């Protein structure tokens, strides 16, 4: 493939701004950390920043969302220190990072997220299996009665294809197959939830953090497996079939001083307590930093 990195006025400008910003910072003792990336993680990242800044008055942390891909682009342009990601980094993105700063970004697992499957509260269905989900979201199953519901057509709600959640769902639940063309794409998990709440034949998916407003289904790994509720014990114990790690990526050259302390804190018991407050699932004890 013939990608040429656009070394244009824009990158020059960004670089000179970064230089100016570092020069400016050298004078003060305050440490500034910028965090950018996944929209799924943004609420959690803000809460972490808030709690951490409350304890360490000298540190200023700025958090912005924009999507996992946007975060990786910023990591590669070195316009952010930390990149929040709701999926693993792709080889193409590692390649861009190596081209930009010569090293692979360091990966930290920071939390666990179970993806819930939402239906309207009026829907009598209680549980669903992963193969059935695949069939519904690829458009093969079009009526609720085929999966044990009432005789009504299914409306499928999905996420925009820029979302990490979309990619995760496509790879792990749809086994890489295409979403049905008729799937309505919504700009966020909250929008999916709201659409499903208003549409009694709707089905959607999203992070467990947004659980209120519609009903979630218990999920079976396959048609003969037991149905599992997306509770903390089930997700952390890896019994619930649709779960993923949430990550933070960092340029190894920046992983020192205040940034390293912050990352260590996020993965400590204190940081993981915040994860629980926001509604995601903390890392199992073996993965935490002491």
């Amino acid at each position, binding site marked *: 493939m013939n*990608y040429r990195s656009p070394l244009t006025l824009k990158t020059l400008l960004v670089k000179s701004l970064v230089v100016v910003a570092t020069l400016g910072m050298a004078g003060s003792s305050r440490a500034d950390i910028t965090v950018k990336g996944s929209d799924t993680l943004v609420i959690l990242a803000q809460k972490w920043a808030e709690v951490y800044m409350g304890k360490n008055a000298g540190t200023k942390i700025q958090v912005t969302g924009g999507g996992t891909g*946007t975060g990786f682009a910023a990591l590669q342009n070195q316009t952010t220190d930390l990149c929040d990601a709701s999926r693993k980094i792709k*080889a*193409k993105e590692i390649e*861009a990072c190596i081209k930009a700063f010569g090293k692979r970004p360091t990966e930290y697992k920071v939390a666990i997220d179970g993806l819930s499957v939402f239906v309207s509260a009026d829907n009598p269905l209680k549980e669903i299996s992963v193969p059935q989900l695949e069939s519904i979201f690829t458009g093969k199953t079009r009526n609720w009665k085929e999966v044990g519901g009432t005789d009504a057509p299914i409306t499928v709600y999905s996420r925009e*294809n820029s979302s990490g959640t979309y990619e995760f769902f496509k790879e792990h639940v749809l086994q890489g197959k295409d979403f049905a063309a008729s799937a309505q*794409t919504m700009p966020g998990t909250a929008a999916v939830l709201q659409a499903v709440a*208003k549409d009694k034949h709707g089905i959607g998916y999203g992070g467990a953090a947004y659980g209120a407003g519609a009903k979630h289904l218990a999920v079976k790994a396959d048609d003969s497996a037991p149905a599992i509720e997306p509770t903390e014990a089930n997700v952390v114990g890896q019994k619930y079939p649709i779960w993923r790690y949430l990550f933070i990526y960092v340029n190894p050259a920046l992983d020192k001083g205040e940034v390293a302390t912050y990352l260590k804190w996020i993965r400590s018991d204190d940081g993981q307590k915040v994860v629980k407050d926001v509604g995601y699932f903390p890392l199992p004890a073996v993965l935490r930093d002491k």
Partner: protein
Amino acid sequence: MSPRHTTGKRSHGWMGLHRGHRARPLEWLAEKFIFAVSLSAILVVLLIFLFVAREAAPLLYGRMNSAAVQEVIPVSEFDKLSPAQLQQYLGLTPSELAAMDRATLQSLMEVKVEALAEIPAAFREDPDARINTTQWRYLLRSHQWTDYAKPEFIWQPVGQIKKYNIIPLLIGSLKTTLVGLLFAVPLAVGAAIYVSQLARPRVREVVKPTIEMLSGIPSVVVGFFALLVMATVLQRVFGYQTRLNAFVAGIALGFAVIPVVFSIAEDALTSVPQAYTQAALALGSSKWQAAWQIVLPAALPGVFAATVLGFGRAIGETMIVLMVCSASVMSWNIFDSARSITTTIAAEMAEAVSGGPHYRILFLLGAMLFAVTFVLNLIGDVVMHRLKLQLEGKR
């Protein structure tokens, strides 16, 4: 005879400066400055188009390759590669290659191997994985992909095998735009006839600015309203299945189009000379007959121009369609969902890898949209200009 004719032909000089008077230097300078400023707008339009077209260009030359499975050279053969081969394989510029040390280059090669390993085995064997999906035939024509029962038009730009067929997006844009125009044009033209021909002056003073105020409502607010209120109400009235569909988006688009069509149509109707109406009334026609049978036919090109400009406004509108519906269905049914070109660009640009095939295709869509709206605006303006000259009797 008017005084203009008694003074004879008057020289207008260059750019309106009369030779007879001596222009003061400051005025001269100010005039040149304003002239330059007005030119800059044209320049900016040109630059934007050039930029958009440049970003899409590699696609037109067929230089992009989006095949999922590509040839991979194992890292152990690093020393056998010449710098030129390495540069081509890793997609680097000569200066980038020179700046990198051995370890960096080797890790870049490792990543290529990892990229292949990242693809699930099922896809590595799939013949579709070797297709460069950015070729024109995959962009414009249907293709029977693995797992599909028949050839289909598919827009799925993210995934293992990237499908970039733009036909569903074109249909989505046209579908919502046509619904919007069918809803907005009769209403707007009707209102324009009423305001310019039939209404009492006091009514006109209230109605005209009120309709024009519609254009001041931010489209994100219209979209929000459509998403939460109109979608539910319209579904209850018409009883269709998909709650968020092209019909709702089209009606909401109508609100953005009405003020455009109204103000141009009203302008055209008002510029029909009073003498037309007066002659009709003197011959015994009613006010309604004069408006409908005399003034409207005379201003018809203007109404056409208004429709064309309204079309340009609707097809370029982003936020309303983005908020209301966005499923890339290949269907002309207005009660199915739709995904417009503008929605696609707005929703996907932020995540598309800069310089990658997806990014280029979004720019291609942008260039197409730009060309369409530019031509439509040009047609609208030319028609309107000619009509005015005609009605003023200059042609």
